[in-house]
């Protein structure tokens, strides 16, 4: 049996009925990774030995008749921006190429308590800055559906490994679309929970008011199961909210009767690919047939979201990334060993360290990639004396208007349905030299982060070229349940999620 193909809920049944062991499941995944991952490059670090030890431990528990949770013994991949004790955590950056965390993120602690099998750390855009996973210091990640295209980003590795059956589920992070956009482009389910729903403790900070950990799964049922495991208040993250966590599997109902589905006219604009638009319109028809009520809503400030985001996120990043100074951890310029010869620009005598500031500047220049430098400078500029009000404060005010738009729209509907990305996966290299074009590819996902809302991407079609297209379902704050119910009903009445890429 090809165990790697299955979902977590299917595998849980096999484990409980003793028809498969966690060791067999984990081995089947690693065999597939070892055979095929070189075509995709979805992992930065693999932790096979640890994983197999853990699997044996779970199997022992099961054979002793102990009760296991619904994700015990299930192999899961972790985006390399989430801290894992004793496992290297690079954030896709050279500056953390030798960094081994001394503590676990809260989500990892929860996983360890439930005996989850951690497969390894997935490839990503450096410090989660990017929409294509081309900005990784560990090589470009490729889309399993067509290896000449990008998998999306920044959680490209986490999306690609689930699509390619190199993991049963995975965790990612979403600051401006970094879960939903790669999920859409790789044809898997990707959920960004409400800001504050899942602890960010141990998630390496990019833009702290926008970052959120979320899930990649093969179907909606697994999405609910994984959200159950990671949601909840955490004293270690004071922005996580004290609010009861429902059992999300109770929302897995094949019933969209009377659900009010809002369609924002501002999301159906020129510049969206015709095939994407068609897939979304078809999906709206499907909802109609399933008894949902379609309501037109308006989000008039949508067109300003990208501009506001590219002030707010870099401003927060410029502050968060100040900690990479070559003193406490990570790469320092005189430690030349981590860089290939081609990266050691300048003559050796120019690179001699004259002072601590000189060390900071050289460490950061050599350790950060281009996109990270660009955003640090953009943020520093926007926060600098004389520009603060014109840029940063202005962007924060526009953020208020964007949030108000959603508040108003949600008075008329239960969920809002939109495209995830204006195009299917684009070619590797296509947008890398034009940062603004890259930024604009997140136009439909960014407003959700600015408003702190939960949203999911689910498969809803394919382009003529065979690339997946995703549908975004946005919910009210802390109403992941309504999103899951709507998504589940769509999934149970369509076939898109059953198609797999040929690698």
């Amino acid at each position, binding site marked *: 049996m090809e165990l790697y193909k299955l979902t977590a809920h299917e595998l849980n049944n096999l484990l409980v009925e003793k028809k498969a062991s966690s060791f067999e499941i984990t081995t089947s995944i690693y065999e597939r990774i070892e055979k095929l991952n070189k075509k995709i490059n979805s992992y930065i670090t693999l932790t096979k030995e640890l994983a197999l030890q853990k699997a044996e431990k779970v199997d022992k528990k099961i054979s002793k008749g102990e009760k296991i949770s619904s994700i015990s013994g299930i192999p899961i991949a972790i985006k390399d921006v989430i801290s894992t004790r004793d496992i290297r955590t690079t954030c896709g950056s050279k500056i953390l190429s030798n960094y081994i965390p001394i503590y676990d993120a809260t989500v990892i602690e929860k996983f360890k308590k439930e005996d989850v099998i951690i497969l390894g750390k997935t490839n990503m855009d450096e410090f989660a800055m990017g929409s294509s996973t081309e900005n990784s210091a560990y090589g470009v990640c490729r889309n399993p559906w067509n290896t000449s295209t990008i998998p999306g980003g920044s959680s490209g590795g986490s999306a690609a490994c689930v699509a390619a059956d190199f993991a049963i589920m995975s965790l990612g992070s979403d600051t401006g679309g970094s879960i939903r956009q790669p999920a859409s482009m790789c044809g898997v389910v990707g959920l960004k929970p409400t800001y504050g729903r899942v602890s960010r403790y141990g998630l390496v900070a990019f833009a702290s008011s926008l970052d959120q950990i979320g899930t990649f799964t093969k179907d909606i049922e697994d999405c609910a199961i994984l959200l159950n495991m990671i949601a909840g208040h955490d004293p270690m993250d004071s922005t996580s909210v004290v609010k009861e966590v429902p059992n999300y599997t109770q929302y897995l109902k094949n019933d969209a009767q009377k659900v009010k589905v809002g369609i924002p006219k501002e999301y159906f604009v020129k510049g969206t690919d015709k095939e994407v638009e068609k897939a979304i319109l078809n999906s709206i028809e499907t909802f109609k047939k399933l008894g949902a009520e379609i309501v037109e809503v308006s989000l008039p400030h949508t067109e300003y979201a990208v501009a506001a985001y590219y002030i707010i996120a870099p401003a927060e990043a410029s502050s968060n990334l100040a900690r990479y100074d070559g003193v406490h951890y990570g790469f320092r310029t005189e430690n030349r060993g981590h860089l290939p010869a081609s990266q050691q620009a300048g003559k050796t005598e120019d690179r001699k360290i004259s002072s601590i500031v000189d060390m900071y500047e050289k460490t950061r*220049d050599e350790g950060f990639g281009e996109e990270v430098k660009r955003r640090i400078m953009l943020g520093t500029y926007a926060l600098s004396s004389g520009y603060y009000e014109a840029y940063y404060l*202005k962007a924060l005010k526009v953020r208020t208007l964007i949030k108000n738009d959603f508040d108003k729209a949600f008075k008329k509907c239960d969920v809002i349905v939109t495209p995830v990305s204006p195009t299917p996966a684009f070619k590797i290299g296509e947008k890398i030299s034009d940062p*603004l074009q890259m930024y604009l590819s997140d136009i439909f996902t960014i407003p959700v982060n600015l408003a702190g809302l939960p949203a999911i991407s689910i498969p809803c079609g394919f382009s003529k070229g065979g690339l997946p297209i995703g549908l975004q379902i946005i919910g009210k704050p802390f109403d992941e349940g309504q999103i899951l119910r709507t998504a589940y009903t769509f999934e149970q009445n369509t076939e898109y999620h059953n198609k797999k890429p040929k690698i």
Partner: protein
Amino acid sequence: MKNIISKKDVEYVAKLSRLKLREDEIPKFTHQLNTILEYIKKLNEVDTSKTEPTLQVVPLVNVRRKDVQVLSSTVEDVLKNAPDKERGYFKVPPIIE
């Protein structure tokens, strides 16, 4: 089109950001940052004269923990990843030139 940000500005911002840019990086970043800032000018179309800023979306205020001692990381753990260390301290290049 007049540049919003000059090469000199980029050098200054790089200095504030503690980044020693290579010669070839400066014109490229100047061009790219200008393109991005040109786009961001769009925000000026929006009337925000009566709008309050939103710093974060969750209605939380002053989250505090009890003032009690708890275990934190050991010195050994904290120094584990240090690029340079000596006798239980982080070691850095000269601070006073």
